[in-house]
């Protein structure tokens, strides 16, 4: 089963890579539109230093953005779920926040925070925080009524209900939010880097100006690998924390 989990996703990757190599090498698709996979690999191998450095910059910024999203998103969700009044007052703004296109506010971030890491981290945070809030609030409010009855019969305080019942019961959905946020944190960082420079986003921007499609693809590939690494790390963490929870099996798959 574990073998299948690794093998099956590799099949389409191998097929698509092989097919694009053949189509580009044979001239069916022009090289300036789509680089052959071998060309992308050679770009990465020819100039590993700049790619590694850009990768690490994006990794640092997106990791910080994701960390802030996880911490503040969860905190906001706990506050929103604790009080109906607070939720009614502030949840619409959380939704509004999500609908604002990051590309439109990224220049503002540069004005407020300057070029460099703070802007990129802020962009990553803004894009990735909403799924954490939305999933966590849904999970925290979706507690089985029978368990709420049970806690009421045990005369539990509101804080006990939140911390001993709602929060642990919501963990599968909380982690589902983290997994969505993981990919978005990388996207947010890349968008921030488009404007603020540096990292894989800056590298893509420069390569685009130079019409270097192969370098764009190499950077995109690294960004995707980064997103997958975060996703895998969170899935690993959730497997450890949610071990032996039959109710979580569907969410974990």
């Amino acid at each position, binding site marked *: 089963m574990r073998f299948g989990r690794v093998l099956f996703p590799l099949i389409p990757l191998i097929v698509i890579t092989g097919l694009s190599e053949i189509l580009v090498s044979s001239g069916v698709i022009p090289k300036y539109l789509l680089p052959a996979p071998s060309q992308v690999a050679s770009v990465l191998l020819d100039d590993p230093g700049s790619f590694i450095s850009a990768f690490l910059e994006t990794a640092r910024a997106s990791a910080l953005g994701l960390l802030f999203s996880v911490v503040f998103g969860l905190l906001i969700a706990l506050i929103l779920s604790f009080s109906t009044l607070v939720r009614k007052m502030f949840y619409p703004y959380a939704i509004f926040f999500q609908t604002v296109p990051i590309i439109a506010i990224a220049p503002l971030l540069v004005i407020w925070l300057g070029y460099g890491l703070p802007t990129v981290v802020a962009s990553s945070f803004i894009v990735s925080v909403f799924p954490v809030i939305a999933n966590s609030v849904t999970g925290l409010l979706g507690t089985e009524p029978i368990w709420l*009855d049970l806690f009421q*019969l045990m*005369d539990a305080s509101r804080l*006990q209900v939140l911390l001993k019942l709602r929060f642990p019961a919501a963990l599968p959905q909380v982690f589902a939010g983290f997994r969505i946020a993981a990919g978005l944190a990388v996207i947010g960082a890349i968008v921030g880097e488009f404007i603020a420079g540096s990292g894989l986003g800056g590298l893509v921007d420069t390569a685009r100006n130079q019409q270097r499609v192969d370098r764009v693809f190499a950077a995109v590939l690294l960004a995707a690998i980064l997103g997958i690494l975060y996703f895998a790390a969170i899935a690993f963490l959730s497997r450890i924390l949610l071990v*032996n929870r039959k109710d979580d099996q569907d969410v974990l798959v």
Partner: protein
Amino acid sequence: MIQLQGASRIFTKTGTGLGATSLDFNSGEWVTLLGPSGCGKSTLLRLIAGLEKPSEGTVIRPQAKDQIGFVFQDSALLPWLSVLENTMLPLRLKGVSLKDAKASAEKELNRLRIQIHAGSKPHELSGGIRMRVSLARTLVKSPKLILLDEPFAALDEPIRIELGLELRELFNSLKPTIVMVTHSITEALWLSDRVVVFQGQPGKVVLDEALGFGAQRTLSQRGDPRFLSMVERCFGILKGGLQ
């Protein structure tokens, strides 16, 4: 003693629930509520537990919630806690120290002969064991009143009988007040001291009868002519309601 004085709880959307009901439940008595779905049996339990407020009338019950134990049809165990942790939960929420809560929980697990499962998670257990854990979690509070909402509904017949007998023995030794809801006429008559039959939507009491089968229960009692005639009587009432 628990008293319902003209208490009703009617769900306006469906018209189901409990019609105006006056009943007394005496201390140390096992009363079983019988009736078709939607006649308000579970609603009555929830009214007694304080989980619902009556639409009309009053319910007099123990003021302290820790005197009330509730066993749900679904064992309602928390899947992220072990059997021992689930059993300790009521005490931990009350602020009892870990050491004392653990000792009390282990005592109840021993009493219900499930101490071997103390470290297991609920999904690793059979339905019968899960129900025993749910009972242990209820008993750990030493409640004076135990409300059982179809506790055996999801169990196989042999386990129902075994658990029913054990529960009756526990009742005989601890003497709490028990109010149980079931759909099984045999189970109701075999386990309890008194049976209350409901009919209609919203439900009304159509039979309230003390059974007088004594404290001890054996399987052979279910073949007793007086028991069988009572089964027939209840069946007739419930069947009449359906027609």
